[in-house]
């Protein structure tokens, strides 16, 4: 008889399954304003406590408190609120368009709007983001990006800038600092580091911003990116969007149980923050801090954004099969739009009436863009880019075998 009890395999589970209530006690929350703000030239070592805490600015009353409260004027905050609302309305509208079969597939970022929008406000023109499919807010926050163009991509119509070659939401917009989105998870995280290294090699002052979800941190590219970013002190912000879910998989299965994703950064020698991802002010402050670090050549920063994937993973997903229906309502960090709205009302720069009015305006704006985009076709009406273009762009110049294949198709 062995003196040891039999070993047992540990397989993490979320506390809440359908019909139950999630116990969000596993989130390591800190009160708003409680976490210190180190100088931008701090060492990774000095961020160890921050990687297990939570940077928050907005308290439950909607007041901005503590050392991370950014000095943003009300106009900027109003722009931020507007951009978040626009992102949510855009998503809602495209969800309906997908149900109407005008596009084949869609992914919302419901509940995560603050992260991409506030982050984009902290970057400069010329910086490059390496997003996943859930950072449409980076584009929608910009006034120089047309929603019509984005919708044409979603509809794969004759005006689709990607010529119908890519799944909806896999945008590419170099001029807006938005790198081509890949279906293969995590690959862009390493590429972001390379872009930052290139900027350093060239003696530039531009920085890169890489994006990854909690689930995808388990891919080898996550580890690779951290290693290279640390080794070469690359000017890059490494964003981990911890929305608690990877399709049906709770973040504990990705390695989040009893630890944090921010802590990985410290372990690799990278200054790391863990931030309330539903707090527009905290997102802006942390992003600006990381951007300043990178631009001053102090190296990379990893930021874990704690948020919640409020919607289904995609239009092909039904979350009621694996998690409680009321989970988002119970998520302690709330709704980023509601929280910024309360803050703006609290400081006397917004009102319910303005909010409703803005919502109506944005809905009209999005609807008009959709109407315009649909004039160039949808999957439903088959107005798609010509089959001949399918053979272009595989190489810079079309090789003989592709010319032959195009001929065989008779186009």
């Amino acid at each position, binding site marked *: 008889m062995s003196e040891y009890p039999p070993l047992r395999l540990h397989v993490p589970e979320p506390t809440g399954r359908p019909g139950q209530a999630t116990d969000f006690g596993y989130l390591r929350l800190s009160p708003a304003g409680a976490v210190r703000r180190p100088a931008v030239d701090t060492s990774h070592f000095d961020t160890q406590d921050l990687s297990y805490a939570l940077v928050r600015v907005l308290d439950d009353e909607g007041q901005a408190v503590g050392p991370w409260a950014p000095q943003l004027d009300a106009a900027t905050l109003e722009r931020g609120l507007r951009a978040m609302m626009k992102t949510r309305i855009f998503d809602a509208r495209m969800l309906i368009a997908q149900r109407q079969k005008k596009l084949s597939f869609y992914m919302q970022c419901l509940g995560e709007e603050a992260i991409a929008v506030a982050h984009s406000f902290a970057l400069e023109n010329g910086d*490059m983001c*390496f997003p996943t499919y859930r950072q449409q807010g980076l584009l929608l926050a910009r006034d120089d990006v047309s929603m019509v163009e984005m919708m044409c991509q979603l509809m794969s119509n004759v005006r689709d*800038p*990607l*010529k119908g*070659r*890519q799944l909806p939401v*896999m945008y*590419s*917009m*170099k001029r807006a600092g938005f*790198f*081509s989105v*890949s*279906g*293969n998870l995590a*690959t862009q995280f*390493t*590429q*972001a*580091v*390379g*872009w*930052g*290294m*290139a*900027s*350093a*090699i*060239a003696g530039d002052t531009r920085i*890169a911003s890489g994006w990854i979800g909690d689930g995808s941190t388990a891919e*080898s*590219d996550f580890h*690779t*990116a951290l*290693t*290279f970013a640390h*080794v070469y002190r690359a000017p890059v912000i490494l964003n981990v969007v911890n929305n608690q879910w990877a399709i049906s998989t709770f973040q504990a299965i990705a390695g989040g149980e009893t630890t944090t994703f921010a802590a990985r950064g410290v372990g690799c020698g990278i200054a790391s923050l863990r931030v309330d991802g539903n707090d527009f002010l905290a997102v802006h402050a942390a992003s600006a801090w990381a951007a300043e670090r990178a631009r001053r050549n102090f190296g990379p920063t990893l930021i874990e954004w704690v948020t919640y994937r409020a919607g289904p993973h995609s239009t092909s997903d039904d979350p009621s099969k694996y998690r409680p229906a009321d989970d988002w309502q119970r998520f302690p960090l709330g709704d980023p739009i509601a929280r910024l709205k309360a803050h703006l009302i609290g400081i006397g720069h917004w009102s319910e009436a303005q909010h409703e009015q803005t919502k109506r305006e944005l809905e009209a704006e999005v609807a008009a863009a959709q109407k315009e985009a649909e004039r160039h076709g949808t999957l439903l009406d088959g107005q798609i880019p010509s089959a001949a273009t399918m053979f272009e*762009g*595989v*190489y*810079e110049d079309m*090789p*003989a*075998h592709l010319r032959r294949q195009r001929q065989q198709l008779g186009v």
Partner: protein
Amino acid sequence: MTMIQALRSALDVTMARDAKVVVFGEDVGYFGGVFRVTEGLQAKYGKSRCFDAPISEGGLVGVAIGMAGYGLRPVVEIQFADYVYPATDQIVSEAARMRYRSAGDFTAPVTIRMPCGGGIYGGQTHSQSPEAFFTHVCGLRTVMPSNPYDAKGLLIAAIECNDPVIFLEPKRLYNGPFDGHHERPVVPWSRHPLGMVPEGWYKLPIDAASIFRPGKELTVLAYGTMVWVAACAAEETGIDAEVIDLRALWPMDLETVLASVRKTGRCVVVHEATRTSGFGAELAALVQEHCFHHLEAPIERVTGWDTPYPHAQEWDYFPGPGRVGEAFKRAMEA
């Protein structure tokens, strides 16, 4: 120059001409590479142009793609082709498709160098010829030189090419030509005309084959070390074989191949890589598709066996001039 010196010269020439060219990989910087291809480059161009990298092939290619997205022209060294697999996702899913999926918004002009091939008692993980993994991937160019002159001209062309290039270097040819007669001493490149390499800039087209040995009786399709083996087999059998050095595996120079087979009516395909689904299968299929009425014999394939590359049995595995010559005879007798 040896092939090593020729490759180094290609890197030197392009780095001098274009500040966007950066060279990195495992042991590539200070030490100059385990095969010395990058020797002296860091001292000459500085650490931001030629540097050592962590042991992470996926990382090497991944950061190179990001650098290319910025506007640089990275040249990455994978220490052995046998170790390219951790980078497969970045090569296949990213570099190869960047131009296509972004409709030209982003491109990946990355050159990925890797020593390949056997004949050096490298065993299972220092001998492989993984070219068929790459020729199967749309958007990649796969290139393999067989001599110092071509190596330099092709590497310069690869670095200047705006498509991603897999650049395979047969390490058995690094110091001298090798015809499969391992029992004989290596003749250094300094005693071979193809070792005469100009110092300055020149480049070769990245999609053109060369007729390595003109002949009338049968066509041999080969690349890398096997070009030398095939030429040796022609001398030893007395069969007047036309040996075509493909140089560019894919996209390839089909016209040169077809013209030769139409002339000779017989075709033997030779490669070191394993047989099943090897690049030779594509070559045989193309030849029979385009030359069916000219063929007077079945197309022969002489390749490595469908086994991992063994250590002690190296010369039973390696398709040497004996095995290649037998295939020539079968093709002539059919």
